[in-house]
């Protein structure tokens, strides 16, 4: 059954969208990633205009991360002060990202830019996931003595603040800069940014792992909230029919994923997921390199 998406202005099979939401939701439930980095390129491969894919995906991630955020909120696993500092950077970054996308749309290079950014990120994420799963499949890791966190020069910058929940006394500049960077990525690429934010909070800021997921979800919820509004307001690219169909699939997928998680060997699935991510990246690479059938492109102006 085909469904006409009013903002994307094309017909897409409704089952394909729900299954896509289900599969990506399943994977995100299993690995605790938002799944935007996988969903947006898949939507683009379906023929949905990149700017619409990015904006609608922001709306989808918002719905998907609210439930995760609430779960961590109940467990009090959130450093609100750190979240607030990250958000000052994140919100401004996401607003700037929307305007950057507007500029790219006006010069007609948004597709190239978004694909290119995705190729880098997918290869990076897929590659590190692949390496990690191969090493953990190969040998059982040996527990190492680790400090609470390493102090690096970034922490010594001015405007130091005490983050009680995270047991940190560091400058607010690194979290603001990280938040800002993720905010731009979030608006330009339709990702929550958890897959970068989480390692950045652990390895750069030195936050304790149990606080990290909840705090990053706090950032993702607010940034995608602002990004949804800004994408609609500035570029009119949020297709709520598209995002609703994805949300329906994702909600069920995430629940199934989180239930099955316990029964399967995580490393094996992580290995398969990394292969999947790398395949998507390679298809995007091919799309850039293959000689197009038509050497001209035509866009109608309304």
């Amino acid at each position: 059954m085909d469904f006409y998406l009013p903002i994307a202005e094309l017909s897409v099979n409704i089952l394909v969208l729900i299954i896509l939401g289900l599969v990506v939701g399943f994977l995100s439930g299993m690995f605790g990633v938002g799944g935007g980095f996988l969903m947006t390129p898949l939507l683009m491969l379906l023929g949905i205009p990149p700017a619409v894919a990015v904006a609608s995906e922001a709306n989808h991630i918002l719905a998907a991360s609210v439930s995760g955020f609430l779960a961590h909120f109940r467990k009090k696993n959130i450093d609100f002060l750190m979240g607030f500092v990250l958000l000052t950077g994140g919100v401004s970054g996401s607003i700037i990202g929307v305007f950057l996308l507007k500029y790219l749309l006006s010069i007609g290079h948004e597709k190239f830019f978004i694909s290119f950014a995705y190729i880098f990120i997918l290869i990076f994420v897929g590659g590190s996931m692949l390496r990690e799963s191969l090493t953990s499949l190969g040998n059982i890791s040996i527990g190492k003595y680790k400090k609470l966190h390493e102090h690096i020069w970034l922490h010594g910058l001015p405007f130091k603040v005490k983050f009680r929940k995270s047991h940190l006394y560091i400058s607010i500049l690194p979290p603001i800069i990280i938040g800002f960077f993720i905010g731009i990525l979030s608006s330009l690429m339709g990702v929550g940014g958890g897959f970068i934010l989480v390692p950045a909070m652990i390895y750069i800021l030195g936050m304790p792992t149990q606080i990290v997921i909840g705090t990053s979800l706090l950032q993702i919820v607010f940034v995608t909230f602002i990004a949804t509004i800004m994408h609609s307001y500035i570029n009119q690219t949020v297709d709520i029919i598209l995002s609703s169909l994805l949300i329906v699939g994702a909600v069920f997928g995430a629940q199934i994923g989180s239930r099955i998680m316990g029964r399967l060997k995580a490393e094996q699935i992580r290995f398969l997921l990394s292969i999947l991510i790398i395949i998507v990246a390679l298809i995007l690479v091919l799309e850039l390199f293959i000689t197009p059938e038509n050497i001209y492109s035509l866009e109608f102006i309304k």
Partner: protein
Amino acid sequence: MIFVKIIFLLMFYFVTSNNLIAQNILGDIANKDINITASFNGAKIVIYGVVDPKIYNYTNIYVSVVGPNIEAKLRKKVNRYGVWFLDNKYININFIPSYYAISSNNKIYNMSSSLFKSMEFGWSNINIVGLENKKDSEQNYYKKRLKEIYTEKQLYVSKLNELNVIENTLFRAEFNLPAITPIGHYEVNMYLVNKNNSKLLSSWNDKIFVSKEGFSADLYKYSQNNSLLYGILAAIGAVLFGFFASEIYRKI
């Protein structure tokens, strides 16, 4: 049924009238209002026509469907370091039919004749504004490229020599309208031309109206006209959905 209606129309017309010069070709359109709804997956335009059987043997029939004029940007893709980019430069086409379909009951050997130019029949004769200040050879080049793009998007349909005329009088032309079709008035033209001297004997035209209606059209309008509120509602809707979904699953 429209077919029966046309036959009656035809009988009535040719029995009562001896004046064959006035109107030798007549038509009707099966569906004059095409609605782009949520389940829209393209449409079929069906045009019925009748021609006076007494003169059919020395005539040719041409049918065209011309979509609303639209502005467009034509950009070249350029290869740098093996990667395909869209060029920054573009040709602004102020005016081009957004859809173009033709059919005829005969082969056309000379599309550039004054007859086809006057009927704007055939891709090379359609009215495209924005290429005038280019050389003739360049104009032809760009027209060919546009034709390729239109063909790929199924916005150009050519069914020359495919029009079947039954009993020298009744014919039906069918064209597919793709799902990406723009909204507006589509002109339907029929021409009856003398085979021997290429003179236009008679013509008929009507319009099809393609519109967006229903929920998805309202949603589109709302997203364009109240974009801030649309965004706020989309964001709040997503939050509520996520909240209720997690509440429901907590209970299960």
